[in-house]
């Protein structure tokens, strides 16, 4: 099986990686770059645990081939905080109690960040719709939705 040399930016850092054809972006992040914040849940594009930002849009990284990412800009959960300062959505997930076991949290943070980037003041229905691809078996979602609202509010100040 062939390998592909790709150049991409991950969390602001340029990376050069050699990847086999059948390696997903998810596996590359976890196994080649040791960015294990991104989780492998269903590996079928259903659960959202592997959500990362690719060129500004959230994608299921289990549904993207690493070889397709030549030239791409990827942001994972490790890239949300800047200068030792958590992203407001991270702060508010803690404040609202939106984290229990934590497995879905990295994906939810990325999806919520992407939502707030395209819609700084989402209503309840818009938040629910945006998060429909992120399954959480612990929280019952209410506190997560609350966290997104709190983050939107904090950013509007």
């Amino acid at each position, binding site marked *: *099986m*062939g390998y*592909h040399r790709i150049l991409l930016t991950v969390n602001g850092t340029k990376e050069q990686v050699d990847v*086999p*054809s*059948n*390696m*997903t972006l998810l*596996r590359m992040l976890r196994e080649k770059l040791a960015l294990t914040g991104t989780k*492998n849940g*269903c*590996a*079928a*594009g259903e659960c*959202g645990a592997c*959500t990362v930002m*690719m060129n500004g*849009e*959230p*994608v*299921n990284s*289990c*549904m*993207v*081939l690493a*070889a*397709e990412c030549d030239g791409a800009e990827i942001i994972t959960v490790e890239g949300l905080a800047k200068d030792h300062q958590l992203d407001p959505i991270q702060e508010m997930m803690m404040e609202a109690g939106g984290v229990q076991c934590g497995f879905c949290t990295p994906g939810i943070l990325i*999806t919520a960040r*992407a*939502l707030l980037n395209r819609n700084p003041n989402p209503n309840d229905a818009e938040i*629910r*719709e*945006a998060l*429909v*691809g*992120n399954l959480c078996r612990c929280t019952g979602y209410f506190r997560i939705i609350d966290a997104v609202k709190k983050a939107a509010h904090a950013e509007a100040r």
Partner: protein
Amino acid sequence: MNNSHPALPEFEYLIPASLNEASQFLASHATEARPFMGGTDCLVRMRDGLLPMKTMVDVKPLEGMKDIKFDAAKGLTIGAAVPMNTVARHPDVRKHYPLLAQAAETVASYQLRSRATICGNICNASPAGDTIGACLTMGGVLTVHGVGGFRQEPLSKFFLGPGKTVLIPGDIVTAITLPLLPNKSAGKYRKLGRNTLSDLSIVGVTVFGYVDTTAASGFRFRLALASVAPVPFVPVKAEEILAGKAITAETIQEAGQAAMDAVTPIDDVRGSARYRKYMVRNLLIETVTEVWKQLAR
């Protein structure tokens, strides 16, 4: 029990230099290579061993595949590699083809739609494809590049069975074109899933209506039904009833019944055949009524 996390099997990933090269390669490796778009169907099926391919030919980077163009004389052309989210938020789509934007937004989740494409949804030829009804009812035509060059394939003759289309090895769908729509038109995709958002459809009903003074009723309704036949289904008799006499609650009932009688759904994990038939009737009545009210305004 199946391994719930099998890795992808081994395959080669190829970016062709041109459409010609891609078509030649695909034609000469008919059973072992296929075009690769957003991957949201292919990768799942490959992982589960249902799509044993030696080479995936990534046609997304080829010229024109990521363009959306609206031409006030010709209509809308959407490149085959344009993700559904890009389609759904495009100002020309929202303004001139809102039915397509609305249907696209019912597909899976936002993340999936960052990758999934309208043309991929069509080529996958699932009877449940959510965006197929909108494209069918609005008269979509596919541009296909094969070993003999470009040709057009109308969507109305495209589907042969579940997962089966008129495409032959070497063919690559490069775009879909929707013609200009009549001035006074309205549409709606009504999707019944096991939950409100994100599920595959138990039944999907697409209604596209427009004012047409040549029809006895003054209206034409183009209808398409998802998940109730081996292919995306057009209930022709129901369309004729709605064109043939004055639109009243009774006419719409009659059309709903005609559609219910015409569909041939199956029992599966999402719903029984019997339930699907009743839902076709009820949702068609609801949706036609809603669209008709918008048109009659």
